[in-house]
Each structure stands twice: as structure tokens, then as C-alpha cells.
């Protein structure tokens, strides 16, 4: 059982634009992503929404598979800017690694 942690979104604000909450989980970004055949990047965005920071850290290496081609951001129906969120998460993870 994962307990939701809504404060994580706040924490992320210092690293990224605050658009993860705009995502309505349609999956376009995951399906359009040419590199990663999983739920990525929606999985990361969803973890931000529910505040599952440890999940993001566990799967951190996935973030670096993203080459920022911009397709997800271009096609996002809610303009949630998935590319920017992934970039922010990279910063967050780096910061976490630096601190630990």
C-alpha cells in the first residue's frame, strides 16, 4: 500500500515547472515516446501527482533514456509539458544523489 503524499508536488516546484498536475493520464506521451516501451513518461508524471518520490528514485535511470525529442510535449492534449517534467525530475534526482 502506498500512502499518497501530496506535498511532493511542492517539493518538485524548485526543479521544474508545475505542470504535472495538469496531466489527465491519457497516455499519449507514453504511446508516442519513441524510446521507451513502457508507461514512461506517464509513469513518472503519475508518481509526481501521487507523491511517490521513492518510485521515481527507484526508476531514476529510466529518466536518462529520454533524449528530449519533444514529441510528448508536442502531442500532449492538456499541454502538461511532459518533457519539461522529465527534465525537472532529472534535476531532482541529481540533487538527491548529490545530497545522499
Amino acid at each position, binding site marked *: 500500500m502506498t500512502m499518497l503524499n501530496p506535498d511532493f508536488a511542492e517539493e518538485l516546484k524548485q526543479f521544474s515547472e508545475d505542470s504535472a498536475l495538469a496531466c489527465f493520464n491519457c497516455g499519449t506521451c507514453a504511446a508516442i515516446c519513441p524510446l521507451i516501451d513502457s508507461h514512461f513518461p506517464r509513469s513518472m508524471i503519475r508518481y509526481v501527482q501521487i507523491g511517490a518520490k521513492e518510485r521515481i528514485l527507484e526508476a531514476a535511470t529510466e529518466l536518462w533514456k529520454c533524449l528530449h525529442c519533444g514529441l510528448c510535449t508536442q502531442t500532449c492534449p*492538456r499541454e502538461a509539458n511532459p518533457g519539461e517534467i522529465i527534465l525537472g525530475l532529472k534535476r531532482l534526482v541529481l540533487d538527491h544523489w548529490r545530497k545522499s
Partner: protein
Amino acid sequence: MTQAKEKEKQHATKVGVYICHCGGNISDHVDVEAVRRRLEKVPGVAVARTNMFMCSDPGQELIAEDLKNGVVDRVVVASCAPSLHETTFRNAIRRAGANPYIYEHANIREQVSWVHHGAAATEKAATLVEAAAAKAGLLRPLTPIRVTAARHATVIGGGVAGLSAARDLADRGIPVTLVEKSPCLGGQLARLDRIAPTGERAPELVRALADAVLNHPHITVFTDAQVIATDGYIGNFKLTVRQEVASEAFTGTEACYIPFSGMRPAGPSPSEPREFNLETGAIVVATGFRSYEPRQGEYGFGDFASVITLPTLIRKMAEQDTEGSFLEIDGRRIRSVAMIHCVGSRQIPGIHPEDASGRLNEYCSRTCCTATLNAACRIRETHPGTRVYELYRDIRTYGRGQEELYEQAARDGVVFLRFEPDQAPEVVRADPTDGYPLKIRVTDTLTFSENLEVPADLVVLSTGMEPNDVSDLVEMMKLPVGVDRFLLEVHPKLRPVEMPVGGIFVAGTCQAPFDVGETCNAAGAAAVKAASLLAEGHVELDPFVAEVDAERCKGSGACVEACLNPGALALVEMQIGGQTVRRAQVTPALCLGCGACVAVCPENAIDVCGMTLSQYEAMVDAIVADQVAADALR
């Protein structure tokens, strides 16, 4: 009329038979040409024609031309169910200058081509059309019954729909009486605060509408009042209204708005219950809805004080109307609110339990998604410290400005979780270490069906709509009720605000869940039908009523005894051949046309116009004709 004479008459008429392909709906299964060829040979049938769409303009024109040219004087159209197009063709005949009651309809789509296939379908279609032609041969021109209509309408229910319909009718110059059960006007709208998505204040909307109604010279309002008896018919209803003594004494000389109750008209109310009669031409039923009451234990309702319904939340928030980092409810600081959608709506047999009377609300209540999002946005705006979670099945923000509200809620930080109906969230007491009194366990499909826990100080149930219990009106006025228990219109597209009893209309949430704007549309649509009805001062009714053959009637009185509508039939003294005799007489506007009298007359002296016993006998003869022919060959 003797049988021989009737036969003679049947053959003296020229029946036109018009068979519809229905663009393949019929002709894919019924050989329409074969039917036409067979009908052409039937004695009494002058012409038989076919058309791709008989209901289309060229189709109707075929009939009109034949009538105008004197080729036919009786008409049979074989097409879809009569409920769809009987009126269409009667009107076409009327436009061609003929009497619309020389028409008979044969249903060869719903009752043939859609249920039978192959040669047997064609055979049956032909037989049904032959039967219709046999009846048509015996039809007589009839004159509609003209009834004067009281230029007055009664609206039952003083919520948005009732107020709006009353004002509409009164603005058209029609005097209106509005009867409201409770002491106040405004209905369920008075129990709301800000209305999504425009943010308008419900009390202001109620006040505006109620003021217009209370100050209207053509509207009389009775609160604490109910219709307890109805009588009469379209244009001439007689209602008995009972007004109770107001539960709380109110003697104000001006109407006043009571928050969460509505607009209280100026007093004083009667000191004793009173009953009075109303004569009215049309009735608008606008009896509204009530909010679903969750069952004991449903998502913890009743088990935990901090599980409340959305209407309760709206009221508590409005009454406090505070700003501040955290929402406070009953003095408790709310850090986290979880809102659960579809409570008492979209219930599924086998998953959701039925209530004591076996009912299940399988319908969507239409308004709750937006109302919930609206409340969530409001909380996030005025109490940014309070977290909001929404647990939903589908977000149904279908209306204008509603999808935007959904996005705004998301951007304001509302977290959405989606559950499948067979994996409903569970509201449980949290562990002391969780720091919250309650938590909700949910299998969230947005998070790859992981099991998540939502911490909650407050759980809000988005309860759906149920129609108000109007079984007394349903009984009295013979109103049809759908499987969803809302009042059932005649047809959602052809006659969306009409009840089958002429002159009775339906408006608003007693018919289906609607939001405020949709309710006003429904009220306007009902009002426009009532206005059209009452505009002329008289109403024309179908002439399908009993008729006495005074020559045959011996005055036995059997019909009067059998008659189901007191007053429709009576024995009266009249002069026949210089003698005073007692004979049966019909009051057409009161006759229901049921035919109870027909069956009991020992002299066959009474019949229902347009559906006489001999017409039915002719149809049966046509149906068995092939057997008779086969027997003859044997």
C-alpha cells in the same frame, strides 16, 4: 347498419394502399413489390403504390395527388410503427383537402421486417396490409371534437422548473396557478451555493426567479399546498388543491429569502387547512428531485461522522463562508478531503446492493461530476492548505465550460484517482500512526492498478439524484414512470415534454437529471407546448369516441351501466317518430373511447368511431382469408 349494407359500403370506397421501403428497413426483408401486386388485386383497392420513404415529401405527395384526383378516398400506409407516422399521414391527407380519419396504418416494419425474414415476412406483410385495407374500406370521415379550453395553466412544483415555466406562461399572458408542497419556492436550487461553471450564486438565481413569479400579475402562488384530486380532460381539468397551515408561523408582509430553504412568499398563511378547486386548461408537472441518501455503511456513511454528502458539504461551506489556509467543518480543521463520485448513481446489478424495495439507480445523475469539481476548486481556492482527492469512474464534464473546470481542478492541485466499479474504494479508520482519522483504500487504474491509500479528515460522497416521490400524482393523473422511476415522456425527440394524457406536460428533474440551464430549457419547452395549446381558446380532440345509433338503441341502459367514465353516457328523453323515448346519449369530450359500452349493447347500437366492431371483424376476416380459400379448395 346491416352487414350487407356495410359490405356494400366497403366496396363503394376506393382504398389507396401506399407501401414504404423505408430505405431498405422494410424492403430488405419484405418483397414490397410483391405486396403491392397482391394488394392491387384486392376488391375495393383502387391503387397500390410503393415509395422509398413514404414519410418523405414525395411520398406524402403521392397520397395527396391520388386524393386530389379522386383516384382514392380511403388511405392505407404500410410502413413503420403508427406511433411514428400515423399523425404525419393524417396531416398529409388533411393538407390534400380530405378528411384525415379515412386513414388506416399497417405496421410492417417493427412488426414484420424487423422480426421476420424471408417469404413468410412478405406473406405476413401482405396479410396485414389486406387487413388494414379491409378496415379502411369501412372508415367514415369523422369530425374532431372541439372543446373550449380554459385559458389558465397550473404548475405543480415551485423549484427552478416550476418557477421558470410559470413565469414563461404568464409572460405569454396566460394566468397561472403554482402549487408548491413546501413552504418555500426555489426547490433544490435553494440548497446550493455557487453554481458551476459560471460561479453564479444560487440564492440570487432563486430570488430573481421567485421575485418574478411572486410579483407577476398573472401568477397565483400557493405554498404548503398539494393537488389532491384531478378530474376532467385537456383544456378542462378540475383540480382540488389542499393548502395546509404553515408549519412555522410566518406573517411577513414581504417575501423573504431563507437560506437553504428558499423564498418564503408573504404571509399570512391560512389558519386552517383549506381545500379549493381550480379549473385549468393545462398542467405542467415540475416536481423535481431529491438527493440520494447513502445507506448505512455505504463508504462509511453513518459509521463515521466525517463521511458526509456533497449537499451537506456545500451547505456547511456556505454557512461558514470563511477563508483561511484550511477548510474547517464543524470546528475541525480539514487537511485532506476525499470526494467519491457516483454514489447512488451508475449502480450495477450484482455489484451494488438494491434497496429495500429492490431499486437500483443504474442511471448517471449527470450533474454530480461538475458539482464535485466545483466544490473541489472552491476548497483549493479559498483554503489552499486543504488537499483534495477525487475518486471517480469517468469524469463526465460534458457541458460548456465544464471540461475547463476539470482542468482547473487538476491545475489547482486536486489529485484524481480512478476506480473500477467492482473494486470500489473502502473507507476505513486509519491507524493512529497515519495521523488522519480516516483513510481510503483504492485500486487506482491511473497508477497501473496499484493499491493506494488516501488520507482523509473528511470524506464527501457525491450523491446522485432521485425523483421525488410523486406516486399520488402518478396514480391520479395516470403519468407513466420509466424503469429509472423518473416520469417518462411520450418520446424523447418527437414529444419530449409531453405526457400521454393530453394537456399534461413534464418539466425538469422529475423527468431526468438536469442542471439549472437544462432545467430552464425543459421548462421553456413545456411552457411553449402549453402556450400553443391554450393560445387558441379551444382544443381539438380525436373523434374516437362512442356513438349511438339512435334507430337501433332500445334504451336498455346496459351501456350506461358499463361506462367507465361517469357522465360520458346517459339515458335521456328524446323525440323519435313523434314519441318520447329514452335513449343513450354520449358526451364526447368525456368519452374515453374505451368501448366498454360496445361489448354490452344487446342491440349493437353503440360503437366507437374509427374502431368499430365490424371494422375489427373485417380485419380478422382478412387475416383468415387464405385459410378460407384453402378450405374451399379442399
